[in-house]
């Protein structure tokens, strides 16, 4: 299985990302939707087929930075591609995310091309 996990507290953004990923013909067997980092972690623990994560920064319960750190603490998930898709475009926030283990970073508002470019860079 080859599933993409979308972690964003906005259902609107999750729908937009699904549309963009389908249009970009990113190889995928389905989507999993989580509204915060804690839900995202639950999916990663219960769903074996997740091959890519797109994650927001500012979310309730568990934010994106905490989520990335938690995922990287799991031995089997150290190389799972995680792309931050967020309104936080400041250099310090990008550095924090990359230092925590994010694989890529896309700032909202984005174009479909910017999402595709980030995923192609990860071999998707």
């Amino acid at each position: 299985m080859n599933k993409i996990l979308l972690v964003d507290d906005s259902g609107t953004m999750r729908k937009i990302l699904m549309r963009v990923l389908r249009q970009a013909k990113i190889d995928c067997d389905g989507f999993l939707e989580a509204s915060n980092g804690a839900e995202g972690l639950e999916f990663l623990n219960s769903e074996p087929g997740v091959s890519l994560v797109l994650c927001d920064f500012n979310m309730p319960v568990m934010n994106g930075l905490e989520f990335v750190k938690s995922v990287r603490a799991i031995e089997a998930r150290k190389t799972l591609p995680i792309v931050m898709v967020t309104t936080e475009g400041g250099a310090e926030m990008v550095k924090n995310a990359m230092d925590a283990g994010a694989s890529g970073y896309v700032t909202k508002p984005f174009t479909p091309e910017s999402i595709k470019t980030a995923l192609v860079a990860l071999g998707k």
Partner: protein
Amino acid sequence: MGSPTDGEYLLQTMRICVDEVFDKMVTGFRGAAVTAVHPIQSRENGVIKYSDKKSGSCSDELYEEAVIPFTGDVCGQVVLRCSGSGAKSIARGLLMMDESEALGLSDVRDALGECANMLAGALKSKALDPNGSFRLGLPEFGSPGPAGASGGALVYRVAEDSMSVEVWCCDTRRQP
């Protein structure tokens, strides 16, 4: 470089942010024209009155609103306020839905919140972060608005729809 306490500078920057967010993300709102930059004159029962130096005051019934608070060296809010039809148009534009597809109130509010979030994020990157440490809050709805804050609104009209994008700064400084 402008100051985050300079309302005019924040509004000018927000105008760039609106163009960026709506050009990239909201189908159908491309080319939306700013009619004017207005300070808000009053707000009462959901009716916002903007003072217009050239033509006198004008008002719009803009009652669907999403608020993104920001805190830091200066605290404040970014508010996206729409007429009911304007809110639906933004939601449909974001989701690339046509008129025939059903859209619930929760969908509209979520879309409005995400749009406000992108506007606040763009403003943070362009005008706030270069001037200090700031943090964005999560979207809020039906907020009464900050009391005693300085700020203003960009008022847009697209066909029958209206929306305003407001930036408010509080005088009280607090750390994030």
